[in-house]
């Protein structure tokens, strides 16, 4: 069936099986291989993307529910002004080891900043990040990143610009200016 939806600010029309997983559509049909498959069961969070502004496991979203949706993947953040700040925080804290889980963590990090009134304490942060796993187990450093990001006002502003709208327009203008 023909399915039209928006990915990283661009409308896409694809011929897809209704049961195909969003993760496979991204990786196979759109060659956006930043989203990773760890478990395929919604437990590891490596495939986390933003669907209509909310983070979801792309391995658990079927194609037939996608028409009219807006998806943002890790690739879509490349030209977003906040990305450098997030990237910097992960590297400063030494939170990246093999890197496989990182696209998922970055999507969650961006998403957390608009989900709950900030600042979150460590207990709440742990709770909010429970849907992402790092098998190199560098959790304490990753949690430091999440705690730290909440204090960066310029980043919060960028997140608001990104997720205040979910139709991808912000990304398009970011791409143009970038």
């Amino acid at each position, binding site marked *: 069936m023909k399915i039209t939806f928006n990915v990283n600010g661009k409308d896409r029309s694809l011929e897809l099986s209704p049961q195909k997983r969003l993760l496979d559509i991204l990786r196979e049909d759109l060659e956006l291989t930043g989203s990773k498959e760890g478990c395929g*069961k919604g437990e590891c969070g490596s495939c986390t993307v933003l669907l209509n502004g*909310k983070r979801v496991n792309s391995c658990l979203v079927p194609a037939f529910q996608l028409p009219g949706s807006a998806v943002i993947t890790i690739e879509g953040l490349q030209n977003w002004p906040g990305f450098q700040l997030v990237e910097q925080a992960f590297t400063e804290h030494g939170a990246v080891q093999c890197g496989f889980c990182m696209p998922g963590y970055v999507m969650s990090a961006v998403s957390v900043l608009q989900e709950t009134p900030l600042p979150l304490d460590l207990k709440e942060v742990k709770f909010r990040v429970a849907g992402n796993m790092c098998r190199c187990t560098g959790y304490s450093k990753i949690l430091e990143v999440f705690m730290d990001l909440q204090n960066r006002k310029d980043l919060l502003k960028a997140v608001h610009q990104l997720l205040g709208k979910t139709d991808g327009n912000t990304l398009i203008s970011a791409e143009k200016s970038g």
Partner: protein
Amino acid sequence: MEIPSYLPKNLDELDSLLRGVTSPVTYVAGGTDIMIHEQRWKSARCLVSLESVSEMHDTLRFDEAGVLIGAAVPLSDIIRDEGVRQQLPILVDACRQIGSVQIQNRATLGGNIANASPAGDTLPVLSVLDASLWIGPRERGEFQKMKLPDVMLGPGLTSLKNNRYIAYIYLPFPEPDNLFWYFRKVGPRYSMAISKLSLAVLGWLEGKRLLDIRICAGSVSPQIKRAGRTEELLRNRPLSREIIEKADGQLREEIAPISDIRSSSDYRRQIAGSLLMESLTALIEKKSAHEF
């Protein structure tokens, strides 16, 4: 061959679609459970989205006596809702312990019920809240109203035959005077774990007297049933350490857990009793029961 799939926009579209369909349909709300059951997912012959049905996805409607929640409202919307937080904190507590934020952004109460797992995290809470399930398609404009035990019959088994679906969940507000509540899920970790066992308690304590109590344990029997005999033992009695110990014994006897990969039957009996003791002892010690 490609199977047919539908995205009905509202209840009218859904019901008229179903009038034209004779084969069994597979409903998808958030998809978080069905897509990982590979056999069920792959063998689907016709997909119908419930997420796209606006009334089911968007409804959180309060009246004086309760709240009507669309069966396809994402759990994160329920968790965030100010009215639900105030009136039904026990439900918020249960929803927050399901999966992760990524899951909560897609998963739904309707899905948790229709999936019919004895370990379904919201089911004991819906049971003590005395939820009514509104079942479609509508006949002469009316939903059929059913209670949880009449819908969830056993592991993976519901009474929803002939493409019937859960449209709404109605939750009456418990009488607020003297109310206490308790929910605890026991699992290997706080999030992302299938529960070994859970216990929901809702009750009314006036002074030392337990006016009424509703108790429901999850993952301890094929069906989600309230512990009627334990409730009976406690109802309208002064709360004492002796009666709490008796209730512990009664609950262990009353539930029928199995041993499986997550826990042994003995462990489940013991913990169910211990959680009940924890919730009631807290009342004697004047702590609020959910401050654990």
